[in-house]
């Protein structure tokens, strides 16, 4: 009987850039110094996320997860309010809530596939650990989006072009989500000592679901002319095509993005 290992190949197949990211991650992978306070967790999230991953996997998983949940909620609500400031009025709170709900729903919808893909890659994390890592990713995304908020707010106050604002928010989202997903893939690679390349495919699924979620919860940017949620169902491809093809000079821009 052949005794070759059944699990996927190990790390040496990864690119040098990935190896250096994992080496940096490994250097920071140690118990978190100090208490689990929102300010400290935010600091670590940006500077030493590996310490938070260590807490999630080996120490105080639930306290850290709760702080990450709160942090993510506050940041996403704040960014949603900035997004809603373009249209003003009810959109301040409506977009805030929709953005928060949409982001967490996206994470929830993608959680089962993330767990299965992690196992397929040879990962040994339990479902709660995968959930906590996804929460870490969502919180980082929220914090990064909050960093974009002042820039986005300046543009939202100086233009009426919904299409332009849509592209600006999309760019901010892609950058924030991309960096957050990169952290999660690096963490998984480090924790399992495996290439985990299958998670790159999962990242694509996450981005597609988030784009469709933004279409499902529209209008997020423009005024709610037909109610807080558009009744018509459509794919995000068609929605973005409609938005960009209907992009008129500022005075006539009334489409719901």
């Amino acid at each position, binding site marked *: 009987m052949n005794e*070759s290992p*059944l699990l996927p190949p190990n790390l040496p197949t990864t690119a040098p850039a990935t190896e250096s990211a994992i080496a940096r991650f490994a250097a920071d992978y140690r118990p978190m110094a100090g208490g689990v306070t929102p300010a400290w967790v935010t600091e670590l999230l940006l500077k030493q996320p590996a310490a938070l991953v260590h807490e999630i996997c080996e120490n105080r998983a639930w306290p850290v997860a709760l702080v990450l949940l709160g942090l993510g909620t506050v940041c996403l609500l704040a960014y949603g309010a900035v997004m809603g400031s373009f249209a003003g009025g009810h959109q301040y709170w409506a977009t805030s809530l929709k953005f928060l709900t949409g982001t967490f729903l996206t994470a929830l919808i993608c959680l089962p596939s993330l*767990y*299965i893909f992690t196992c*397929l890659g040879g990962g040994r994390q339990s479902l709660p650990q995968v959930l906590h890592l996804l929460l870490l990713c969502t919180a980082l995304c929220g914090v990064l989006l909050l960093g974009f908020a002042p820039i986005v707010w300046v543009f939202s106050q100086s233009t009426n072009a919904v299409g332009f604002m849509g592209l600006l928010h999309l760019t901010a989202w892609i950058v924030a989500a991309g960096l957050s997903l990169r952290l999660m893939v690096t963490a998984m690679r480090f924790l399992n000592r495996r290439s985990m390349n299958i998670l790159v495919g999962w990242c694509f699924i996450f981005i597609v*679901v988030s784009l469709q979620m933004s279409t499902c919860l529209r209008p997020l940017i423009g005024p709610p002319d037909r109610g807080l949620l558009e009744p018509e*169902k*459509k794919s995000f491809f068609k929605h973005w095509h409609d938005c960009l093809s209907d992009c008129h000079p500022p005075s006539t821009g009334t489409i719901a993005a």
Partner: protein
Amino acid sequence: MSASPSIWLRYGPAAICRMDPALMEAFGDRQRESTLLVTTVLQTAVGAAAYGWVFGLWRGTEQAVYSAIKMPALFFAVVVASGILNTMLAQVLGAPIPLRRVCLLILLGMATAALILGGLAPVVAFLAMQAPPPDPVAVGLPAAHPIVARSMHVFRQLLILHVAAIGFAGTVGNYRLLRLLRHVAPTRALATRILLVWLAVTGFVGCELSWLFSPFLCKPNFPPHIVARTYHQGNFYEQVYHAVRDAL
């Protein structure tokens, strides 16, 4: 009751997706093989039923229920229909694998595919629910009618989505099957040969059975139904032949 957590850990979804060594250790021990067989059947049923539900969801709850029943049934029917021939072919090729183990191996590959489909089910369900629903007026109209054509456009988009999801899950499942075969076959080359032969047999049988079990998504101009009304008028390969002849 105390054995349940260990069975779950040894033969649960994570173990099957990773193809843990514990799975391989079960081969040869009749009791452990039986336990593995039962857990694999259960997981295949749950994963396939979850995706089956999602498959029919666009046409409504009735079609979702039909597809949730038919999808696991299709998986098991393929194993049953191709098991004996696959055993004979493996033995002829030089790997004396008994029927019971052949079925277990194929089922483990299918369980991997079913678990991937189960994991993707929430994603595909969300995308399907966000697609424009079929026009109820389209039921009973000819396929060329403009109302049907509008809904058919969405139907085709969803079909591509489902084919992509099932294709991906099937590919990974077969890749896992190859790893298992490498463990039980005397040589790696023989394992690859057996997989190719099994793929040919299972693919041949699977195409016909999936045609018999259709519809899963259901065209918008037909009411939801469990069995195709034209199933006794030819087979999958005749349909392909006629389609190619018409196209030429």
